[in-house]
């Protein structure tokens, strides 16, 4: 099986879906001539031409709105935001138009659109360009929110997102584009709304998504070798709808849970996970569920402070030991 990068996996998904359905087109800043700020759209302008790979001015609200309009009349736009930080300018189109038009038209006008781009804290980009905003979008009924962690998941989920027919917020990990993984040749899709057990374990469950999956896997490795604790790593993959059944099944087995995410604590994705688990798996819990989140501050630029503000494996290990009553 070929090993490719996360960015190339996304590129494959776009190419395959554009071949499959002539209604699919890509629009955003620098997606054409420059081949994408993160090179996700490499070769697509050449292959599909400027009618289907459209460079836009720096006007997020405008091209997001054009995308929504195109979707309303039957196209399947993929709107690339250079990063989700810039998408804040377009959030009215995402939240107030894309998410609501099917409902407000009495079910007459579907909006099959994918908003995609990199998100999550990066490296020394400062407070305005380094943040995890997925819980903002996961809050909104009418949207589906996807945050893949691996090249395999990125490709399979993007293909499903483009075909889904609902407005999708697709958050790629800015720090994940260069990561590599096995991706089979040929057609496959991954259904939205299904979590994935990335590592099996019996002692505790680590719930994570996007880049925090790598953090959790690293912590799990160390927990196994240094603390004799077998952590099961559950990658949410889709944040809305949430795959509660997989979460509950894992916690039924392990009785303990730590939720890891890069976002801020209040109202975070992990808060929702804890809510579901305390209700659905109450009698299976042997310890309070703990959360490891980004620090509740704007992301510092200073390298050391930035490292301290991100949820690293050390903090996950510490929380894992606490839920397993192994502290001290």
């Amino acid at each position, binding site marked *: 099986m070929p090993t490719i990068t996360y960015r190339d996996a996304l590129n494959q998904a776009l190419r395959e879906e554009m071949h499959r359905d002539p209604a699919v087109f890509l629009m955003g800043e620098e997606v054409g001539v420059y081949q994408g700020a993160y090179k996700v759209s490499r070769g697509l302008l050449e292959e599909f031409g400027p009618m289907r790979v459209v460079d836009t001015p720096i006007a997020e609200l405008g091209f997001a709105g054009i995308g929504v309009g195109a979707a309303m009349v039957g196209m399947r736009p993929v709107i690339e935001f250079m990063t989700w930080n810039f998408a804040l300018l377009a959030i009215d189109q995402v939240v107030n138009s894309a998410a609501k038009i099917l409902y407000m038209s009495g079910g007459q006008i579907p909006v099959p659109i994918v908003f995609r781009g990199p998100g999550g804290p990066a490296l020394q980009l400062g407070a305005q360009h380094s943040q995890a905003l997925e819980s903002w979008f996961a809050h909104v009924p009418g949207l589906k929110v996807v945050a893949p962690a691996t090249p395999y998941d990125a490709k399979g989920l993007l293909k499903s997102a483009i075909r889904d027919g609902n407005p999708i917020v697709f958050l790629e990990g800015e720090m994940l584009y260069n990561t590599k993984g096995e991706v089979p040749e040929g057609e496959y899709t991954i259904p939205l709304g299904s979590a994935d057990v990335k590592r099996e374990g019996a002692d505790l469950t680590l719930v994570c998504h996007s880049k925090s999956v790598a953090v959790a896997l690293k912590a799990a490795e160390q927990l196994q070798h240094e603390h004799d604790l077998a952590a099961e790593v559950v990658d949410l993959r889709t944040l809305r709808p949430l795959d509660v059944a997989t979460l509950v099944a894992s916690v039924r087995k392990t009785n303990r849970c730590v939720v890891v995410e890069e976002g801020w604590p209040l109202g975070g994705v992990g808060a929702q996970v804890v809510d579901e688990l305390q209700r659905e798996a*109450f009698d*299976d*819990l*042997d*310890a309070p569920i703990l959360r490891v989140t980004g620090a509740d501050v704007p992301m510092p630029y200073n390298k050391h402070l930035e490292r301290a503000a991100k949820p690293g494996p050390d903090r996950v290990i510490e929380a894992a030991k606490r839920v397993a*009553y192994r502290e001290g």
Partner: protein
Amino acid sequence: MATRVVMEALSPTMEEGRIARWLKKEGDAVTTGDILAEVETDKAIMELQARGEGVLRKIVVPEGGTTPVGNVVAVIAGADEDVSSAFDTTAPAAKAPAAPRPAGPPAAPVVPVVPVGRVRASPLARRLASEKGLDLQVIHGSGPGGRIVKRDLATAAPVSPAGLGGGEGWEDVPLTQIRKTIARRLGQSLGPVPHFFLTAEIDMERCAEAREALNALGEGRVSFNDIVIKVVAMALLQHRECNAWWQDDHIRYFNEVHLGMAVAVDDGLITPVIRQAHRKSLRQIAEEAVALADRARTRRLTPDEYTGATFSISNLGMLGIDEFTAVINPPEAAILAIGAVTPKPVAADGAVTVRRRMRVTMSCDHRVIDGATGARFLQTVKRMLENPLAILW
């Protein structure tokens, strides 16, 4: 920093307290742990301790004043410190001290407090314990704050169904369907505690002889009441089914006997408890009963001395009552009312003779005890009193 001295909850049911006496006056230096005042609660006179140090700057509630639990009664602070902020002006003012307390209804029966604290256990540990029949009360918790977690259950042994006289203090037995039905039906009929009554007349001749012989030793006095306490405790050991608490969804059967004895006090009654009565000699019981009754009448009992009885006795014999019924003190399942020992004509061996007799009436909570169950217990009590050597048997 100024320390507010507040009226503390000195008994489980206390809602307000009356300052019986200030032992410190304004201007006195106090250190933590000093007794500041004596407080009359709904049950007893208790001591109010200082929880800070400095000078007793201000007494807010004077002697004789009554105030709800939680209200400021005094302020402790440094000698020169500004204490104006320590007064909670929003709290209701203390009631005027002068008015004598109206002669209200007798004190409510003391509700025993479960002698151990709330069990802390993870939800999983609770579920597993219930599935395996483990008693969380006796399992040591290794988690934070003593929380019982899954791993603590691995070594725990199931509660033995026999249990009687075993190492543990009690056994909780889930209600059978018939017990549930009895509880529901009789609760509708007779109120929340469906009482029924069993009376027996007991020949006390041999008890009286034994008592006279013991008192003749000149080593302290033993009363009929002491003998009854001892006999009831020993009989309960044989009839655990009457040594129980109704606990709504289960019955708690005790393997130990903590015997409450109702004592009349000025404006009500209180039930001090002779703990482990089944293990105590008649001499110990006699001494303890006198001491407890004395402390009850002077309202000096501490809460742990009047809570936690597994069975109670009420004796009005000394007031010349032949026979009466006593009201059960929930959650206990029964109470035994003791009448006077009086000489009566009795038919024996075809002739009428005069013998000392005593009538006892057992009030039973029908949710726990059935007629025959109570009767068998009373039979044992009667047999032991009519042949006091059986106490040793």
